[in-house]
């Protein structure tokens, strides 16, 4: 900027409007400009402005590779300019490896693998500022099935983590909710009372201020013999939701999908979506995309409805399972399939060939983006936008075990 003494003094409002557009890296450097700026970058209102601005931009694609039976302890992002870069490593607190559970508004929820400790301890990590906190433990050495949810709600300006406990293939009997603003777990029967007979299968997907799990709803009044369920029985499957602001669980029915179709929960334009796909013989795939609309009815209750917004057939993608929507396109992690990735033929690197395939479901256009780093298709893949959001300063000490 060729600016001499003639540059006018800008009012604070304009300066803030410029600063909120800067990447965290620049802001970190510019906190040395003066005390006002240093304090500004720590103020909740500026952090919220910056987050809001960052969130309206195109997110990056964050991924944690999975190779040879385990998650690689390194995170990468594919940014807007289609460049892959490494993120700072996650502080492991003595653990050997980690798994990213979720990514929401600049923060990651990470599970670390400490031998002999189950459920795995959790961290909240901001890769942009490298700020990290280890969450307090509530249960040690517990053999059970735990499923997690992680997300942010702009309504309450808070990040929450939900952890459910169940005996294998049995109903959830305990639910804990962690709130970043209070810094503690809330273990209340109230949560569990809201969803008797619920069975979860996987961690949650978060969209529009709510977490969603695919699960089963058992009828607890019938005899045990009858509740001996076919776990794959489509009819009993439902989606459980947890509203991060009101902390209420609810049940959302799954729309009537075609027979034989596989389906998965996704996030499309910050709404919960179901992508159902049916392969045909020639590696092509028929997609239906359902989106859940939410609105409040006259008595202020949340009403939800499903709309099929899209149907199409795309060729040459039938072999793979899509991961997520990223900037309106479906991301596939394609790997270990030399020669199958169109004409690009991934080079076999350590016996692995990896690439992201981006599919525009409306035009059917496919883009291949080769990268050495993505590992096989179990890689964890998320949308990610950087933020200044702090997670706390003093890491909580490892429990003595």
């Amino acid at each position: 900027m060729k600016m001499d003494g003639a540059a006018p003094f800008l009012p604070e409002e304009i300066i803030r409007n410029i600063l909120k557009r800067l990447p965290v890296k620049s802001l970190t450097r510019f906190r040395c400009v003066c005390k006002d700026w240093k304090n500004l970058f720590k103020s909740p209102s500026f952090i919220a402005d910056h987050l809001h601005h960052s969130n309206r931009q195109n997110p990056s694609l964050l991924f944690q590779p999975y190779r040879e039976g385990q998650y690689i302890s390194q995170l990468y992002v594919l940014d807007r300019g289609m460049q892959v870069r490494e993120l700072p490593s996650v502080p492991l607190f003595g653990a050997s490896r980690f798994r990213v559970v979720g990514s929401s508004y600049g923060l990651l929820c990470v599970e670390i693998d400490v031998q002999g400790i189950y459920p795995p301890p959790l961290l909240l990590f901001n890769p942009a500022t490298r700020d990290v906190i280890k969450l307090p433990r509530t249960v040690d050495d517990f053999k059970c099935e735990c499923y997690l949810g992680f997300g942010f709600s702009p309504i309450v300006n808070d990040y929450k983590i939900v952890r459910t406990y169940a005996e294998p293939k049995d109903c959830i009997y305990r639910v804990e909710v962690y709130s970043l603003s209070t810094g503690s777990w809330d273990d209340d029967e109230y949560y569990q009372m809201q969803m008797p007979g619920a069975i979860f299968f996987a961690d949650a997907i978060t969209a529009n201020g709510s977490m969603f799990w695919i699960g089963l709803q058992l009828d607890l009044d019938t005899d045990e013999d009858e509740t001996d369920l076919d776990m794959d029985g489509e009819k009993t499957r439902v989606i459980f939701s947890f509203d991060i602001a009101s902390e209420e669980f609810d049940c959302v029915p799954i729309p009537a999908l075609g027979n034989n179709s596989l389906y998965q929960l996704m996030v499309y334009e910050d709404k919960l979506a179901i992508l159902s796909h049916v392969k045909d013989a020639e590696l092509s795939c028929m997609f239906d995309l359902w989106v859940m609309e939410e609105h409040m009815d006259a008595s202020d209750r949340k009403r939800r409805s499903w709309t099929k917004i899209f149907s199409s057939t795309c060729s040459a993608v039938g072999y793979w399972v899509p991961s997520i929507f990223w900037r309106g396109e479906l991301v596939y992690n394609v790997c270990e399939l030399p020669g199958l990735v169109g004409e690009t033929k991934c080079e076999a690197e350590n016996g692995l060939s990896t690439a992201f395939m981006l599919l525009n479901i409306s035009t059917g256009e496919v883009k291949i983006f080769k990268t050495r780093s993505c590992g096989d298709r179990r890689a964890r893949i998320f949308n990610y936008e950087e933020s200044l959001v702090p997670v706390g300063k003093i890491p909580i000490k490892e429990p003595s075990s």
Partner: protein
Amino acid sequence: MSSSVEAITVLSSDGDEFKITVSAAKLSKPLNWMLEDVCFSDDCDEVPTIEVNSKTLVKVIEYCEKHAPRANSGASDSDAEELKKWDIEFMKMDVKDILFHILMAANYLHMEGLYDLACQTAADLMKGMTVSQIRKIFHIKNDFSSEEQEQLRRQHPGCSFD
């Protein structure tokens, strides 16, 4: 002057006269109010003054004239793309040395599009600047004491005050 005029004359803060078309003036609420005053007042001889210097006002009017057709009628996506490219070029040219003046003018004239564009341009330029360059353009004094600088360096190794 009648309401059928197509352009009005305004004065810059330096006292130079500029013409701006009615449709372009609609991009700014304050300009639009001025225009209505001029068109509907009986005293037609008065030329309104805009508190923006000549060098800046030329660019602001150029921006308005370029964006007016789209703002007034709505346009196709290809036009929007073209306009985006034009914006980038517009900010690249000789605007840089008056960028802050453009920012102030866009803010004062309630021109959201130009304000956003100028803020983003300033942010993009700042990314490559050193801390002392930033202080210079924003007229900021380094108010950290040497102890405070030392403390910050300890907390954040590698941070620079220059």
